[in-house]
């Protein structure tokens, strides 16, 4: 992408009209059925998250001592937990909280990582060297252990999960941004922007960064899956959201506490929800990556 931008004829090419770009996008999607499946899952999840109050049959936090730990039935499709809460409603509301956490974590790591990578590549020299060695150290930790350490340091809560999950992904973004920024920095449009008197900040953030964002966004789709898994893991071991929250990992923990009683429905359905959500983002991300990488088509 950055390579074609450097070719002179690219500067004359007009951007095709929206209808044309839409048709192109649709054609690319049709050639990639797994990406379509991923897209459908992701869209469905987002809709469920947005309309959770309308879709959920019960109030997820309504305790009903009459129906404690009931197996799935026509009244409660996914059964009830040990407080008589409806598991289906909890799973539906969980989509809201889990997607929110994953989105926040991905955006946070994307912004921080992109800025670090862009500045590092643009500045070069000693700055670049020090930044990249710092990223090496951050990546030397086994992922989940590092997340546990951070969550331990700041104490449980939604913010903790977001921060712990995002710090893990900052080095990845920084490296990716750096690798696309290095060739872009030497491109003609960068030279043009500098020669008309653009400041470093202006050249970097107005001209270079926007041209390097496509691989970053594609990578984010894959990061989404990781973020959901890691956030759920942290909540499962009690370092994430509070145990009563409508969050998938916390719900599985609730099921684990009752494991020997054989109440499989409390943990099975939230686990399936995680698996389907992560699957959706992975399929979509893989598909997008295939579309971007001409070698893989």
């Amino acid at each position, binding site marked *: 992408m950055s390579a074609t931008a450097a070719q002179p004829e690219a500067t004359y090419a007009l951007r095709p009209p929206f209808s044309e770009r839409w048709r192109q996008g649709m054609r690319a999607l049709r050639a990639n059925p797994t990406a379509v499946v991923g897209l459908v899952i992701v869209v469905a999840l987002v809709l469920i998250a947005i309309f959770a109050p309308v879709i959920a049959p019960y109030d997820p936090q309504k305790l009903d001592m009459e129906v404690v730990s009931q197996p799935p039935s026509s009244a409660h499709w996914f059964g009830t937990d040990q407080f008589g809460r409806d598991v289906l409603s909890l799973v539906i509301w969980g989509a809201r909280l889990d997607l929110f956490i994953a989105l926040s974590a991905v955006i946070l790591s994307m912004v921080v990582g992109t800025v670090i990578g862009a500045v590092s590549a643009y500045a070069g020299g000693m700055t670049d060297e020090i930044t990249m060695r710092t990223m090496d150290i951050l990546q030397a930790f086994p992922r989940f252990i590092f997340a546990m350490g951070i969550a331990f340091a700041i104490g449980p809560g939604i913010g903790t999960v977001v921060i712990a999950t995002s710090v893990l992904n900052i080095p990845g973004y920084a490296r990716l941004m750096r690798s696309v920024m290095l060739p872009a920095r030497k491109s003609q449009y960068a030279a043009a922007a500098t020669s008309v008197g653009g400041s470093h900040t202006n050249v970097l953030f107005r001209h270079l960064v926007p041209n390097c964002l496509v691989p970053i966004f594609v990578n984010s789709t894959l990061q989404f899956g990781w973020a959901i898994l890691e956030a759920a893991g942290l909540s499962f071991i009690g370092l994430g959201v509070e145990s009563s929250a409508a969050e998938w990992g916390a719900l599985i923990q609730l099921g684990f506490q009752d494991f020997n009683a054989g109440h499989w429905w409390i943990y099975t359905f939230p*686990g399936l929800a995680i698996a389907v959500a992560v699957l959706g983002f992975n399929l979509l991300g893989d598909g997008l990556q295939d579309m971007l990488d001409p070698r893989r088509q």
Partner: protein
Amino acid sequence: MRMLRYILRRLLFLVPVVLGSIFIAFLLTRVVPGNPIERVAGPYASEERVLEMKAEANLDKPIPQQFLIYVNDLLHGDMGMSYTTAQPVGKDLKERFPASFELVMFAIGLAIVLAIPLGVVSAVKRGSWIDHVARVIAVAGVSAPIFWIAMVLLSIFYGKLGWLPGSQGRLPIIMSPPPHVTGMYTIDALLAGDPVTFKEALRALILPVLTLALVSMAPIARMTRATMIDALDSDYVRTATSLGIPRRTVVMKHAFKNAIIPVLTLIAGVIGYAIGGEVLIELIFSWPGLGLYSYNAIMSADFPAVQGFIILATCLYILIYLIVDVITALLDPRVEY
């Protein structure tokens, strides 16, 4: 000789990385709100006693000085005393290491043995049913949370079928561990010639190993398939085929040898992921290894133990990467060292 120089140079590069990770591990446990000593001392300890204990743990000194003391102690092999087990952290970690090592080794071994042939076959027979099975495993393994897979397997094979032991740890409570040689119960039992203990130790390993292997298999199979496809589509494979070399030889000798190198690097990453996943698996199977130890340490704000575990896990991870890099350098003539 050149290899030795390469290893030494790599080790030298690792010094700042290890120091940096020690610093971060140290920092993480210092910014925790609340004072661990007050918790350890209990609500009835006098103020003087708390101050005294703080001084003993060097917690009354400025943080930079605390860090220097900590690094100095580390260099002397002292990781501090655990607040919860009242034992040196180094000793605690050493005792629990074999349990985790046994689990991870079996799991990664199983994952490699299953995933690499699966990846190769699905690349050679693209679109066949084996290819589809491999893809389903690859996708399922990376999508489902590891602790949930563990619970589902446990509920089926222990809860429903009763074929395998439940969340009991390494052996049934009534059995005593075999005489200590390696600390790995299966191997120690074999060495002691004790088939009953061996069988029970193996049975206890099956489900945790299977969970970890399933999750580790997914990326390995996927990567093997991708690199094999690239290799099979390459010019040198076409040349070899056109020279009339049998398909089997082309696949195994020409394509596989080239395809396996990126997979090796990936395996290092997978082991790192397994070290993290260990925590969750050990929690579910009550497996008395490093993961469960670190979980308990975190839950009881046991600073030295948490610190010690993070540093150990990180050093192991770095070491694995180093080993893989050395193997890659030995296998791949293109790598300059």
